[in-house]
């Protein structure tokens, strides 16, 4: 599953160096979730059932900064340990995406040892906040770059048009991220609904073709409410997309 091999799948969750929870609550540390509201802008659990009925869960979560990520990991440390020790689930991998200045602050975090870290090189968050995030759809394309410079040129060349189309495409967030260790590219992008995503896909056909000439498609996931994802199946199922359905979460 990891593009970089098994050695990077050993994500740990404990980190004694992290600050204790900032909450004044007398509850145990794992119940300090109220601080989450001050740290995260978005959190949603999504689930995918494979053909063999294997169930995967993903948490789509975005934080203000690297410091906020570390605080959150500290807050949920006990929960992660309980989830793993109870046998309820095993951890497949953790990815982290963000601007290089923030990612650098996370590289030494014990809690994120072995995780795959992507530097966001260009992108934006919508200047108009989403009025209703309940239909939010995110698409997670991964590419193995055969020629990183040419790949980046193809997609960065399309960026101005993508930025300018944010109203039409109902963009919530968009960021091209790279793991230079493995020459893996990932675009963190989300739209207010499936229709917006479809408009975006139509607008980037030229970049897709140029990028495809210098890369290999590695993995494609789509996350969102079931009724929205149904609208995408005709277009994305033939591309091998995995569909993760949103079950619960919040937008701050």
């Amino acid at each position: 599953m990891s593009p970089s091999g098994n050695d990077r799948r050993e994500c740990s969750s404990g980190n004694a160096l992290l600050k204790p929870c900032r909450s004044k609550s007398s509850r145990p540390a794992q119940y300090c979730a109220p601080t989450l509201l001050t740290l995260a802008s978005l959190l949603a659990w999504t689930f995918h059932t494979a053909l063999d009925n294997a169930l995967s869960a993903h948490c789509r979560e975005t934080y203000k900064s690297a410091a906020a990520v570390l605080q959150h990991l500290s807050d949920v440390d006990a929960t992660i340990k309980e989830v793993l020790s109870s046998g309820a689930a095993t951890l497949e991998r953790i990815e982290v995406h963000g601007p290089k200045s923030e990612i650098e602050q996370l590289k030494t975090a014990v809690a994120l040892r072995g995780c795959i870290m992507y530097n966001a090189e260009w992108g934006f968050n919508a200047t108009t906040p989403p009025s209703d995030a309940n239909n939010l759809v995110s698409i997670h394309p991964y590419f193995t770059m055969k020629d990183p410079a040419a790949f980046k040129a193809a997609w960065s060349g399309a960026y101005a048009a993508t930025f300018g189309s944010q109203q039409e495409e109902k963009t919530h967030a968009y960021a091209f991220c790279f793991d230079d260790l493995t020459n893996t590219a990932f675009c963190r992008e989300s739209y207010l609904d499936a229709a917006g995503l479809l408009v975006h896909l139509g607008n980037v056909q030229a970049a897709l073709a140029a990028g495809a000439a210098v890369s290999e498609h590695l993995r494609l996931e789509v996350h969102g409410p079931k009724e929205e994802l149904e609208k995408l199946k005709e277009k994305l199922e033939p591309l091998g997309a995995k569909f993760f359905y949103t079950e619960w979460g919040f937008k701050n």
Partner: protein
Amino acid sequence: MSAFAASPDDDFTAAATYIKSATSLTGKSATNDQKLQVYAHYKQANSGDVTGTQPWAAQFEARAKFDAHTKLKGMSTAAAKAGYVAEVLNQIDTLDLANPASDWAFLSDRSVSIAPYFKVENKEKFTELWMKAFDPFKNKDDCEHYGESKRE
């Protein structure tokens, strides 16, 4: 254009817009010193060095602002803008500030997402444990909830 390589001017403008109507999610208030830091850097960035005479001691607020601005005398416009942005970022972290109207734009240059993937063996137990961890904010009114975490 890229939010990850925003110019100092973009950052300054965004920070000013953000702080104008930001509120603390945990009810914290800025200290006088924090307010003066924001004021002084903004003033230095827009007007340059302080001019005029120091207000009377009885004019507490005017004098405090004048003195804070005076401390930045000689600071370049670029440095004042950078200092302003740094102070706003510091207050966002220390005061737990949020601004629904401009969160997404302003925080874009620092936002980090984490993406954990689990192979689930027991969904009921898995969900129970995570819902328990998130239970305290389940009934909060200041955020939108999806699916099973919706308020009753």
